């Protein structure tokens, strides 16, 4: 079964040589640009806004791992993102855990949740898979509405930022920014490493031709489930980080529109590209930020972008750039 990413992002550009750490030369260059932007931007842009971009970039990267590299469209990733946020918030506020431990707890629980839902969902493919993940995520949403520790629609508010490793206070936006940037980079490189491992090769084989992967003796379901769990856990880490940054964990992050948003980010940036989700998250978050006063038009504009991307720019921003430059990004 060919994933949507197969629609064109990779035609004939698979043969490039790796330069360093599994990056091709253009990818290394792009990584350098991204790194430079991460280091320089907080001196010029509002750090809280940048942290939001980074959280969503990590979320989109985790999501992209599934759709771009295994060919599975999950329409319920909000469940892991939101659950990670709740658990991290709860750990930091009620258990008094340090921020990095809280975020790890969030990621761990999201991974567990992903394992439970994934085991059920990977029994089907394509659209069926999308709808099952969507429906399961709705169950998680209703659980979050009901469970006492989430505080219903108020959410967990006033989550303390705490001190990194119990040592370095994160009260200043600037200090917190470096922690968030660190988490993002670790997550990003981890995903990159997964894709380039033998495990990642099998994932891509499944995306391209599942029956053939089966006939080669791979236990396809195990691989899919593993990818699902990794994706869910990283989404949880992203959600947990967001909860620490904003000091709030709410139902918004578990609701199905959030699942739609992360699809949009990956689509705009380019499904199955390494840097696409990052660019997509930056574009969408910036747009939401600057269009906030237009109210309902934001929904309309997002819808239009969705439609345009699907009809005309299926490769996304990064995918199109890559096509023009004939490189894979």
């Amino acid at each position, binding site marked *: 079964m060919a994933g949507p990413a197969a629609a064109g992002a990779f035609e004939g550009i698979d043969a490039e040589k790796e330069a360093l750490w599994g990056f091709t030369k253009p990818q290394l260059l792009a990584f350098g640009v991204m790194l430079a932007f991460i280091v320089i931007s907080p001196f*010029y842009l*509002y750090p809280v806004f940048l942290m939001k971009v980074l959280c969503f970039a990590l979320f989109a990267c985790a999501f992209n791992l599934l759709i771009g590299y295994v060919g599975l469209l999950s329409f319920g990733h909000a469940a892991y993102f939101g659950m990670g946020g709740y658990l991290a918030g709860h750990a930091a506020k009620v258990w008094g855990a340090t921020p990095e431990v809280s975020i790890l707890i969030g990621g761990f629980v999201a991974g567990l949740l992903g394992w439970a839902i994934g085991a059920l969902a990977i029994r089907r493919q394509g659209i069926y898979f999308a709808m099952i993940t969507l429906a399961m995520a709705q169950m998680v949403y209703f659980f979050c*509405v009901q469970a006492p520790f989430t505080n*219903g629609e108020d959410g967990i*508010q006033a989550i303390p930022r705490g001190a990194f490793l119990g040592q370095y206070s994160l009260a200043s936006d*600037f200090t917190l920014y470096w922690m968030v940037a660190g988490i993002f980079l670790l997550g990003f490189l981890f995903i990159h490493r997964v894709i380039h491992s033998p495990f990642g090769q099998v994932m891509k084989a499944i995306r391209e031709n599942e029956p053939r992967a089966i006939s080669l003796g791979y236990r396809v379901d195990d691989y899919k489930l593993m990818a699902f769990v990794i994706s869910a856990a990283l989404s949880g880490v992203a959600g947990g980080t967001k909860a620490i940054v*904003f000091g709030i964990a*709410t139902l918004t992050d578990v609701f199905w529109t959030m699942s739609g948003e992360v699809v949009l980010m990956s689509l705009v940036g380019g499904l199955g590209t390494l840097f696409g989700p990052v660019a997509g998250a930056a574009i969408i978050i910036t747009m939401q930020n600057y269009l906030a006063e237009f109210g309902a038009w934001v929904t309309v504009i997002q819808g239009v972008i969705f439609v345009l991307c699907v009809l005309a720019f299926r490769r996304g921003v990064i995918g199109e750039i890559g096509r023009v430059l004939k490189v894979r990004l």
Partner: protein
Amino acid sequence: MSIVDRRSLLVAGAALGLSPAQAQSQTIRIGVLTDISGPYRDPTGPGSAVCTEQAALEFQGRGLTIEVIRADHQNRPDVGANIARQWYDQGVDAIVDVPTSSVALAVSQIAREKNKVFLNSGAASSDLTGPACSPNTVHFTYDTYMLARSTGGTMARAGGDTWYFVTADYAFGHALQRDVTRFVEQAGGRVLGAARYPFPNTTDFSSFMVQAQASRAKVLGLANAGTDTANCIKQAREFGLTRNMKIAGLLLSMMEVHSLGLDVAQGLVLTEPFYWNLNDRTRAFTARVRSRLPNGWPPAQVQAGCYGATLHYLKTVADMGAAAAKADGAAVVARMKAMPTDDDAFGTGLIRPDGRKIHPTYLWEVKTPAQSRGAWDYFNLLATTPAEEAFRPLAEGGCPLVTRS
């Protein structure tokens, strides 16, 4: 202020369309943070912004430069908190409106952290002046306690002594049901049952209507808001509940009545501290703003609250000087509490130490189509609760500001 902070402030100034020199000046900046795209758009939304601008307009000549901006919080606490943080960091002095309690609670915390001013009109939660009260927050228009007391208490005393609740299953619905239950029991009444329905995502309430009917209670209490309330009322009428039950829409407002139409809404009882056709002053206020409100509708209570709160805030700022006001939000709010309020929408009143603005509240009955003498002529006045009795007594709220002083 560190270098980094100053830089981001300057960038912020640019983002707001200001030159750095302007950003240093003594312009008072007010941000209207409201629901522009969601279910509470009509009773708050653009109308709240227009009413806030009206207050600014009336003050423009008196030596203050005032700028009003607006944004949509989409009823999402994270979005609201994000915008509030950014606004305060970038030179906004006061945030106005903020419907949806969860968003309001988040913004209140940020206002306190940044020592700015938060003038809430749209949110219902009485926690804002209770356990979560803040020296930087004023809660202007209404709250759950006041609604419960006026609608619940008055109906219970008037013979509605047995109740059945249909409650939205989340914190707000529970709080409303709990508050009303207390007043019903104080008045010697009983609660016979309650159905808690999943929120959101419930559109059909017929099952709960039949259960309510089977309970043989005299009053159906609707502990929900917005379109849920409208749906419940529509379906209660359809299932004939209105023949032997009274419906108490605990958070029902003029906008829901408008959306239901008088033939469905007639006879409903609701509480609002502001109604455009209450007296000469409210009519004068309505005449001033109506042409600029969306669709030319008269102002709703929350929108009028934005006007009242902003007007009082600006009076205080003019009194203490823009520079001092910009420097210390808590000081402004303290001064606001010291001065009596007076505006065309709510008349005279005052702000208590816990941040609660108090004014008389009114219990209204929705007119029948025959009684209504024109568009938006919706209410008959049933009862008035004086300001001192309308809201939760200061000592009962559990506000730390009160116990300390």
